[in-house]
């Protein structure tokens, strides 16, 4: 008893549980420790995949063979994609910040199923290990791209099966996290926190969790069928046996399009948290943001066909998918409008999280508009499978999810570690990264319009100038990323200690908990009487 009362007052970083040392972390069912486990795992693999990306950009600095040949290049963009998609951005914000802050923001002591939560992380790690074996065992690393398109994925001699199985296992982890969050939000909100008094980040996690539950099994079965195609030859996607490879594309995108909303929705939630705090103003159109999150999650299910405009589809289907794609842009635009309206006449506070949030809006809008360009039928035929797609995708997924991830980590850093990050280095990192990001990806739009296809290690001489610019941008951006990461890691260890509960002046519940939070978050469960963001 005396030990348990004592542990109520020490921070979650320091308490001694049943296990000591590293076991106290990898066997902990505390949602905060699990969130940090995900963070550290992602940091390692993000670094690996970012270096792969940099190597590809160095290869593309001049036409022809500079540092690698076509086979290596194919293996690299495949691995870059698999790691970035399945290991980083799909679990991404929910696994790290959802785990850490969802219970804090709704006034709960933990998620609904703490053991299942820990199991999710273990399944995640096992999935990663299985994916990694594809690199070192068998007949060479996968070279299909992260999309594993049929029929190449069961014709290539490369070692595809572990990559497919690993992605399947990672999906399982994602589903379990989704189930956990939906139940947590339904059952564990603190007294007084009605649905429309819930902060916006939990709302976006809620929408995301439903996509995780309802879309992930689709990719699961598709990947399993591809495994069976390779090992048994069941024929479902194999044209030689009567199967249809286009059906593979449909099933793949029925998951993988909603998956980009898994990636981006929590990011939109983070920005909706940061903007009102740093504008000292009530969020504009709270309900519109909530409903647009749910609308994105819902309409996002029905737009997958826009990945396949050139694959062969009936004209009617083309029009329907194009129309729905335009439709899904509306709720995203509603959010951008609301953020800008929140900042309007607010008392803006210019600090690192706010810089990230505002630059997020900038890159998210470029990403969104280029998405409409790809979503309209006529332009799509010209731009399909060019560098324009690569640029659009990275503006949304890296610009969207990546920037909001960095916004989130700077925003919540003091709460997570009980220390302050070095603000001047953080701001320098942001400037360098932002400049590098734009230099890297903006030239890709014009390269795509000029007709440079993606996924080739080589290109025609007329594309040279823009590629040099883009490759230099990649180096600049990696330099920025290194400044940011080194600064954060250093600050987490040696930064100025702070026990201040609410350094930014936030109104949501997590800022009422101790810094860093104690094991069970609250001595007394907080009660909620008013809406969040009442400034």
């Amino acid at each position, binding site marked *: 008893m005396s030990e348990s009362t004592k*542990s109520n007052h020490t921070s979650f970083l320091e308490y001694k549980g049943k296990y000591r040392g590293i076991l106290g972390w990898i066997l902990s069912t505390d949602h905060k420790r699990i969130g940090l486990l995900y963070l550290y795992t992602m940091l390692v693999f993000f670094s690996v995949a970012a270096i792969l990306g940099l190597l590809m950009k160095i290869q593309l600095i001049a036409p022809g063979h500079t540092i690698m040949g076509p086979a290596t290049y194919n293996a690299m963009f495949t691995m870059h994609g698999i790691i970035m998609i399945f290991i980083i951005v799909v679990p991404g914000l929910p696994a790290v910040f959802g785990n850490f802050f969802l219970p804090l923001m709704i006034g709960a002591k933990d998620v609904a199923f703490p053991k299942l939560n820990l199991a999710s992380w273990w399944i995640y790690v096992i999935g990663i290990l299985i994916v990694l074996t594809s690199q070192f065992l068998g007949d060479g690393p996968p070279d299909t791209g992260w999309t594993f398109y049929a029929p190449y994925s069961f014709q290539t001699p490369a070692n595809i099966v572990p990559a497919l199985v690993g992605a399947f296992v990672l999906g399982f982890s994602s589903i379990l996290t989704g189930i956990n969050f939906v139940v947590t939000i339904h059952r564990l909100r603190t007294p007084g926190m009605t649905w429309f008094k819930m902060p916006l980040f939990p709302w976006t996690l809620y929408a995301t969790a439903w996509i995780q539950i309802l879309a992930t099994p689709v990719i699961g079965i598709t990947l399993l069928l591809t495994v069976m195609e390779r090992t048994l030859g*069941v024929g479902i996607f194999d044209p030689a046996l009567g199967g249809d490879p286009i059906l593979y594309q449909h099933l793949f995108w029925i998951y993988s399009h909603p998956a980009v909303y898994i990636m981006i929705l929590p990011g939109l939630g983070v920005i909706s948290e940061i903007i009102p705090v740093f504008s000292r103003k009530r969020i504009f159109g709270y309900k519109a943001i909530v409903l647009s999150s749910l609308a994105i999650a819902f309409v996002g299910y029905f737009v997958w066909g826009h990945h396949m405009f050139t694959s062969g589809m009936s004209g009617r289907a083309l029009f329907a998918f194009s129309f729905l794609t335009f439709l899904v842009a509306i709720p995203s635009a509603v959010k951008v409008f609301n953020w800008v309206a929140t900042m309007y006449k607010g008392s803006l506070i210019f600090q690192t999280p706010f810089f990230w949030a505002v630059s997020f809006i900038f890159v998210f809008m470029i990403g969104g508009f280029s998405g409409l360009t790809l979503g309209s039928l006529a332009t799509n035929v010209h731009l399909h499978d060019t560098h324009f797609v690569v640029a659009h995708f990275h503006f949304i997924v890296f610009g969207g999810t990546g920037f909001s991830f960095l916004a989130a980590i700077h925003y919540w850093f003091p709460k997570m570690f009980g220390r302050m990050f070095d603000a001047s280095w953080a701001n320098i990192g942001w400037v360098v990264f932002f400049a590098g990001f734009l230099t890297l990806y903006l030239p890709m739009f014009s390269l795509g319009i000029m007709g440079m296809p993606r996924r080739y290690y080589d290109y025609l001489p007329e594309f040279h100038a823009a590629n040099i610019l883009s490759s230099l941008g990649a180096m600049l951006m990696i330099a920025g990323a290194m400044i940011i990461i080194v600064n954060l890691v250093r600050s987490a260890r040696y930064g100025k200690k702070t026990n201040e509960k609410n350094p930014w002046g936030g109104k949501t519940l997590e800022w009422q908990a101790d810094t860093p939070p104690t094991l069970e978050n609250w001595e007394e469960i907080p009660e909620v009487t008013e809406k969040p963001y009442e400034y």
Partner: protein
Amino acid sequence: MEKNAEHTHVHRDDEGDKLGMWLFIFTELLLFGMLFLIYAVYRYRNPVAFQLGGEEVDVFIGTLNTVLLLVSSATVAMSISAIQKGLKKHALVFLGITLLIALVFLVNKYFEWGAKIEYGFYPGGEALLELGHGTILFFGLYYVMTGIHALHILIGIGLFIYVFQQIRADKIHSTDYIWLENTGLYWHLVDIIWIFLFPLFYLIH
């Protein structure tokens, strides 16, 4: 419950646990839903081959297994009712019957599949590859869909054994039986998926 210094409060929420199980069932339905979708596409494209394929499968074993699963769904429900009333012995007997039926289902499946595999009727098998594309797809789907369903039966058996032990050790009793209830829910899911697989592969000619 093992003593865990990390969590000093005992959190129990049966409603939440049941909600979690339902969400998992939604996931499963989407997974099988995609297989049904694939079946629909290929049946639409190969109506004759699918009709002939349906005449090749063993309707007797299929029907027998359907009856068995329906009965087992009833017995697992009876086991839940028994535990609610505190009748531990009855609960164990009904759960035991369910477990037994699940095993018999798999034995039947073994003989059903075995007879076909013997004649080379399996994906990649010579006898099957000689036939048309539609037939290859029919049997490809037959093995994949009933195979994944059989895997769920196997997981169900594992759950039954675990729950059986827990009831015997009085960890599951009349006031705390959510594990049994959720296992029952899972089993009904396995049952209802079979209710759709059965006509698609065995009855529609």
